[in-house]
């Protein structure tokens, strides 16, 4: 096992969805075929044992990336490579979903839900061993052994998310893709789940690909953060760097508008506009209609990712050194 090779590398991955009108409408009304580019040439790599996070607003493509990595969607272009897993077999990937109410089968007992991947992948032989493994997993996520005989509806939201995590751990994965794992939970329960996930990372050496819209959760969990806007990564940096010195105007907008209980910014009314439709993105940099620094070049040419220190950023203004004019957020 080579620690230097990343456990996951995503290279120029794009995903297009066909959102055309039905065939007959296209023929009769002369409507063209339409595609949404949900993910556009996204590249990143995740080192073993780290937590890589993707943040962005709804519709920016972050969940699509999670589904591409887990193979729930196929890529329209680009490659996804996985590193070598334990004992030379491929890396095992599992996913934790946002809503623990809809991601667990309500008719199955929790013990069966957790045992299914073990049976399916033949990780244990004999019912006694499987049962022992299920109880071990329940203990790992902080549930009692006799919870295996209950149904999902007998648990609270936080406990159900623990069951989801136990199920994901059942196949002994090395990479966990977590799509908004705490968004459906209350704050006090969210803290329990985040603490559990950090502990599991330390104990089991897990790698996380963490998807969230909540910047404070992302800051708590991540080593590296990528900010997505309309299908593209606009900034990628180590967590501390991103929060202390955001480069891209969109990252600054996000950090500037997030509600902060310790330093509320209640005096100003923001007029920062709204994301454009992904069906018809603006020419040039897709952020230009909302950007205070936009000029003719931004409205014409798509900026490329380039490096500033440890940060990769996709912005003409930063590249040309015009970004200093904008007051820093926070």
């Amino acid at each position, binding site marked *: 096992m080579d620690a230097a090779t990343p456990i996951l590398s995503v290279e120029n991955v794009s995903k297009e969805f066909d959102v055309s009108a039905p065939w007959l409408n296209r023929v009769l009304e002369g409507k063209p075929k339409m595609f949404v580019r949900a993910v556009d040439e996204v590249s990143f790599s995740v080192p073993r044992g780290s937590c890589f996070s993707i943040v962005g*607003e*709804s519709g920016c493509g972050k969940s699509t990336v999670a589904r591409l990595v887990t193979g729930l969607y196929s890529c329209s272009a680009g490659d996804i490579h996985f590193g070598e897993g334990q004992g030379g077999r491929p890396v095992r990937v599992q996913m934790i979903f946002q809503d623990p109410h809809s991601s667990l089968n309500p008719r199955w007992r929790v013990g069966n839900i957790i045992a299914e991947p073990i049976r399916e992948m033949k990780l244990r032989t004999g019912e006694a061993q499987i049962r022992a493994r299920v109880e071990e997993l329940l203990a790992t996520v902080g549930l009692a052994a006799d919870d295996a005989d209950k149904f999902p509806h007998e648990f*609270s*939201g*936080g*406990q159900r998310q623990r069951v989801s995590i136990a199920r994901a751990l059942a196949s002994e994965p090395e990479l966990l893709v977590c799509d908004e794992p705490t968004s459906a939970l*209350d*704050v*006090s*329960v*969210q*803290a*329990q789940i*985040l*603490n559990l996930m*950090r502990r599991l990372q330390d104990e089991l050496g897990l790698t996380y690909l963490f998807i969230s*819209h909540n*910047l*404070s*959760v992302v*800051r*708590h969990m991540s080593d590296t953060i990528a900010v997505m806007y309309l299908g593209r990564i606009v900034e990628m940096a180590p*967590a*501390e760097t991103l*929060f202390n010195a955001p480069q891209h105007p969109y990252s600054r*907008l*996000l*950090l500037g*508008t*997030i*509600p*902060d*209980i*310790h330093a*509320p*910014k*209640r005096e*100003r*009314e*923001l*007029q*920062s506009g*709204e*994301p454009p439709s992904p069906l018809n993105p603006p020419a040039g940099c897709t952020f230009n209609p909302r950007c205070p620094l936009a000029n003719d070049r931004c409205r014409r040419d798509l900026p490329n990712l380039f490096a500033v220190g440890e940060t990769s950023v996709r912005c003409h203004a930063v590249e040309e050194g015009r970004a200093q004019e904008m007051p820093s957020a*926070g």
Partner: protein
Amino acid sequence: MTPAAASQRTGTDTMAARSAAPALEVSNLTVEFRTRRGTLTAIDDVSMRIAPGEILGVVGESGAGKSITGLAVLGLLEVPGRIAAGEIHVNGRRIDTLTEEQLTKVRGREMGAIFQDPLTALNPIFSIGAQLIETIRLHTDLSKEEARQRAIKLLREVGIPAPEERLDQYPHQFSGGMRQRVVIALALAAEPALIIADEPTTALDVSIQAQITALLRRLCDDHQTGIMLVTHDMGVIAETADRVAVMYSGRVVETGRVEDVIHDAQHPYTKGLMAAIPSLHERVDKLAQIDGSMPRLNARPPGCAFNARCPAAGPRCHRDKPVLVPAGRGEAACFLHDGGTE
């Protein structure tokens, strides 16, 4: 007008009474749900007061009773829910004893509502202009043309560009943030004294959320409207509200000015809640967590509902229910501030 109207307020001039009365006064409200398996008390002896031009944040976890409180004030509790005890006064007028017919007139004129999902709050088959004009004409004597002018003025006020053209568009032609602005314009249509905003920004993205909370703040100042802001998000409260009431398992456990509650929480639950929010400013190895979860309505322990999760619980907490008493610069319902837990 009912006999209950504004009578306890001093002053013969109704306008004077209007400005003197709190936008909302809820006293000892109890809401019960009668089910086959017994009566569940969703709201247990809750009192709160909102002055004109004040935003009261009501915060709590799901199931704490914050939305039910808002619905009870609006008179929108659904069977089997009912107000079992207590009084609700809006703008000096008692409303919990009104008939459905009388309540319909009060709703909209005296109190407006903003709900979480702006798509379901608007009728998809009418243009937003038609919906605004209908609401305005229902509550005022304006002619159709005057109502249209007022609708345009309202849309401009809530920050919708080119309101003259937007007026004839349908809800699906608006983005989420713009739709919520339309819902706010609807709530404002009759210049109500009180607006109940139930999770108004939860369905929106952060950058849009900040725009909407700032808009609510500005409207509250301009119109001297009292706003009850119901949310689970302490960040939204910090950005928007003047005072906050923290609810837990159907009761208000702490209330006070927002800064005081955030920086100097008095109730153990509020302390735990504040510490559990991941910080934007520093990364810690382990978040403070409150173990366990809020008890279900049918499994509430005797005494303080928080006793099973509380690090400071004593014998008295398992025996008696604490009530709000002065604590710090606000009030908390905890025996730590009321004679000890022994």
